[in-house]
């Protein structure tokens, strides 16, 4: 084969494989009739795989309700939680809807109305002897990477002072791994959202949630900053779901009634997320 030809073929192959990255795509919004919701599929009861292998959860059923109202096709996209900002900003997903903590991230996204009152709590094993936050001094505490609990424990105005008393703050990709380590005794405690903690503690033996919480905060749906058009539609639909009772029914189904803030009088519903 002619050497020059070989060179040309090589170069063009490389160039073409690079050029392949440049592709047309939809313009993010639900215009094409697809409502792409990004979620962490390892986050029960908000988003997870059910016993039939389908993605479900409190948040995903709500999203389905919104999609039904608008005649959109709901696309449930399980994402890598560490990449959530890239997924959202690049338009690969339309929103993050998955027990997503608004508190502390108010300026980073365009938020829906907050719909769940959450708190960050500590889970320990029953026989650990730890009964309050002070008891965590000198212990190894686990937390999910890129989670609200981690942000809180690293924030000087949050619980950084407490975190400084830990022997170590260990980050995990998901709570299942973290619980396995807690069970195995390689860490002493875990910091996480109360809703998730309840699910985990009720489906495993030998763990308790400390009464003393790290903070209280709110869940909302996160949209790409500036995408108020989609946010307004979803907000209006959420209110409709509250009005027709779907919201309360779902909260009951997932045992979250004591945490939800929509549809119980005026508190919570009137307060709009800050931009």
């Amino acid at each position: 084969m002619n050497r020059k030809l070989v060179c040309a073929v090589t170069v063009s192959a490389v160039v073409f494989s690079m050029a392949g990255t440049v592709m047309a795509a939809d313009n993010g919004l639900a215009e094409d009739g697809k409502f792409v919701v990004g979620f962490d599929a390892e986050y029960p009861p908000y988003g997870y795989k059910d016993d039939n292998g389908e993605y479900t959860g409190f948040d995903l059923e709500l999203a389905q309700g919104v999609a039904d109202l608008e005649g959109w096709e709901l696309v449930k996209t399980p994402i890598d939680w560490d990449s959530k900002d890239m997924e959202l900003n690049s338009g690969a997903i339309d929103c993050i809807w998955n027990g997503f903590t608004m508190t502390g991230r108010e300026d980073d996204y365009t938020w829906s109305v907050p719909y769940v009152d959450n708190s960050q709590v500590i889970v320990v094993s029953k026989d650990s002897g730890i009964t309050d936050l002070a008891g965590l001094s000198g212990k190894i505490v686990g937390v999910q990477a890129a989670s609200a609990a981690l942000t809180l424990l690293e924030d000087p105005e949050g619980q950084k002072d407490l975190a400084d008393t830990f022997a170590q703050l260990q980050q995990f990709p998901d709570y299942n791994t973290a619980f396995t380590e807690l069970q195995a005794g390689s860490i002493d405690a875990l910091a996480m959202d109360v809703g998730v903690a309840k699910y985990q503690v009720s489906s495993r033996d030998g763990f308790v949630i400390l009464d003393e919480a790290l903070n209280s905060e709110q869940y909302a749906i996160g949209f790409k900053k500036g995408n108020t058009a989609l946010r307004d539609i979803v907000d209006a639909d959420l209110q409709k779901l509250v009005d027709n009772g779907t919201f309360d029914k779902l909260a009951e189904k997932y045992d979250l009634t004591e945490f939800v803030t929509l549809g119980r009088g005026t508190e919570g519903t009137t307060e709009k997320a800050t931009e």
Partner: protein
Amino acid sequence: MRIQVVLQQLASGMLRSLWIFILTLVFSLPLGLIVSFGRMSKNVVLRTIVKIYISIMRGTPLMLQLLVVYFGPYYLFGMSIGGNYRFTAIIIGFSVNYAAYFAEIYRSGIESMPAGQYEAAQLLGYSKSSTFFRIILPQVMKRILPSITNEVITLVKDTSLAFSLAYAEMFTIAKQIAASQTSFVPFIAAGVFYYIFNLVVALIMERIEKSMSYYR
């Protein structure tokens, strides 16, 4: 969740992993050969470019490369991505990465051929291209097959990196089931699936090696 459902879920994940595996091989094996020509080229510019390409592909994590391929168009050019580009990006990322490794394997094989064979072929009136494709390449294939098998088996396990682009392949599904069932069993099942997959790959490669063991 019943065990049948778990296995069925893992099998569907396996299928998604299998797609990455097959498409990556389809694109990276020929691309690797082309890259190896560039790597051995007498043209200094081309050789240097290809050298840098191989160096970057081998020197940075595949997961990072996947992120760059997928999110790069947005962060570099402000383009909105979405829809089907996710899977395309995975295949591009894997193929371009594996082509670099395959290229070096091809080169090791091609450069191990004695110069006397080229001279003999020239004397017998073979053209350059038929010398390469009829005489050199078949022998090269025989020599490099064990190294290729190594890479191919690594590829099976590397498919789990596709989740960094939110592609739910088998290991991701195993993790999700493990999370909702708060159990470790899905991981063991996933391990068995990977092992069987690789066992089949190894058996096929062994058979190909055997079929090429003529003149030995």
